């Protein structure tokens, strides 16, 4: 219960910052000022936006399917929020440390799709219906390259547990029960003879333990943009064609929930990318002979310093990825639907399949 509340508070905080950052980044990229009035540099803008939404009337269209219309935002947010249950925030802080976390996350996110269909149908509106259809088709297609990219990480790490994958990517490797005698080698290959177990830092991140995961990371990142309906994959919400997509009929609190779910999805996919590829809560600074940068910036597990450093690294890496998402949104034009499908099925999926095969071979080299 405590984990639930803490995660919810953290998520709300991140989403409010993100909504503000979105407007500011957009403004700077277009040579504008963005919000300036509310608070210093307009920093209270998104808080006020939320307060405004909460005061608005909750309008349910007369011709809508009322039960489904009302249920859909709850289902969408619940599905995304359930994904946060298996995300490790620090070395010893994880809401639910289940052994098949990665698989669970992939499965629970697919519930989101049902919620989208429910919202699109319940609104009884052509635009909402088309938006939901496009959104679901896109999410279902892009789950395949994303899933394959995640699969290659799982093959390298030999684990479906997010916390175990996190421990493998840093100096704390031997602290995880069951991994006491594991060793990390540079690029994962023992024959090179460079033991990085105690060097840690960026040299033990998954993209360094197996450099081909860098390609997998790029594939996952592109697919995750599509899964969270971000530009350039925002045809489900294309304003010029569909007004707003599946949430066109929603207002007030229900719109706030949908908005929250959408931004939570962005945060979730970025967190997963950081955990699987970019070293999770591990520090990027390696130990250099006497300069124990990694140990200094990791803290002690189980104490406050460990929690603070872990949370700091995880969140700062996540914010870098989120910033990248925002920047891409204002840099690339929207893809056409045929380009979207071409990219998914003829580029990302075959490359991801090759990566899975190579990851298997790399794993054989690692043992």
């Amino acid at each position, binding site marked *: 219960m405590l984990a639930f509340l803490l995660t919810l508070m953290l998520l709300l905080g991140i989403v409010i910052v993100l909504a503000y950052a979105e407007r500011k980044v957009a403004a700077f990229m277009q040579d504008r000022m963005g919000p300036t009035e509310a608070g210093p540099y307009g920093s209270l803008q998104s808080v006020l936006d939320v307060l405004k939404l909460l005061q608005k009337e909750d309008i349910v269209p007369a011709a809508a399917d009322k039960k489904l219309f009302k249920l859909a935002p709850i289902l969408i947010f619940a599905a995304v929020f359930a994904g946060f249950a298996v995300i490790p925030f620090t070395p010893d802080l994880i809401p639910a440390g289940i052994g*098949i976390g990665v*698989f669970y996350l992939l499965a*629970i996110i697919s*519930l989101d799709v*049902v919620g989208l269909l429910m919202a*699109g149908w319940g609104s009884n509106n052509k635009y909402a219906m088309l938006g939901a*259809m496009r959104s679901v088709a896109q999410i*279902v297609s892009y789950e395949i390259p994303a899933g394959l990219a995640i699969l290659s990480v799982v093959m390298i790490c030999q684990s479906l547990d997010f916390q175990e994958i996190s421990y493998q990517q840093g100096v704390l490797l031997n602290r995880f029960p069951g991994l006491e005698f594991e060793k990390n080698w540079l690029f994962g290959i023992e024959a090179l003879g460079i033991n990085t177990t105690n060097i840690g830092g960026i040299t033990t991140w998954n993209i360094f333990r197996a450099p081909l995961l860098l390609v997998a990371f790029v594939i996952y990142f592109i697919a995750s943009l599509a899964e969270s309906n971000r530009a350039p994959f925002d045809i489900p919400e294309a304003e010029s064609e569909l007004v707003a997509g599946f949430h066109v009929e929603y207002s007030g609190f229900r719109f706030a929930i949908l908005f929250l779910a959408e931004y939570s999805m962005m945060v979730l996919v970025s967190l997963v990318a950081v955990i699987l590829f970019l070293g999770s809560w591990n520090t990027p600074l390696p130990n250099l002979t006497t300069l124990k940068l990694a140990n200094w910036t990791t803290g002690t597990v189980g104490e406050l310093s460990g929690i603070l450093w872990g949370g700091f690294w995880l969140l700062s890496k996540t914010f870098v990825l989120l910033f990248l998402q925002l920047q891409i949104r204002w840099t690339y034009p929207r893809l056409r639907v045929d380009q979207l499908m071409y990219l998914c099925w003829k580029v990302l999926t075959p490359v991801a399949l090759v990566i899975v095969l190579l990851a298997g071979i790399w794993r054989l080299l690692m043992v």
Partner: protein
Amino acid sequence: MLFYIFAAVAVLSGAYMVLTRNLLYAGFSLLLTLLSVAAIYVLLFADFVAVTQLMVYVGGVLVLILFGIMLSSRVHDKSVMSENVNVGWGITISMLTLIGLSYTIWKVGFSSLPWIQQADTNVLAGQKSTVQMIGIKLMTDFVLPFEIASLLLLIALIGAAYIATDKQKV
């Protein structure tokens, strides 16, 4: 206690799915049934099966069903409704199945079975999940059915792709 809650939800939503006339509501109550069955799997220490249930049925099959209903509905400007046909036969067969199942369950006498008496509540025995055991079994004892199933799926994929292609006139 949790088991009874999830079982009740599964049965009630299943009953609603069968009794409702609106196909779309039936689809959404199927979601509830599948979720509560997944929860029961978790209570039985079958975490992998539970998540697979979510992945395959909720993420795949159910979405496909809903897509089908939504795309094919309102053809003649009316919402999708199912009709009651074969009432007599349906009731007969389901009653017979119910009687057969109840009889079997009653005959077995679960509490006296030796493997249930010996069963330990600590099924996982220190293991964090059932994935590793399932993987080893699939690659050793059950490798032939596993491969045949994958072949079947491949055939289905090729067939689907073939049906979906435009047959160009030569």
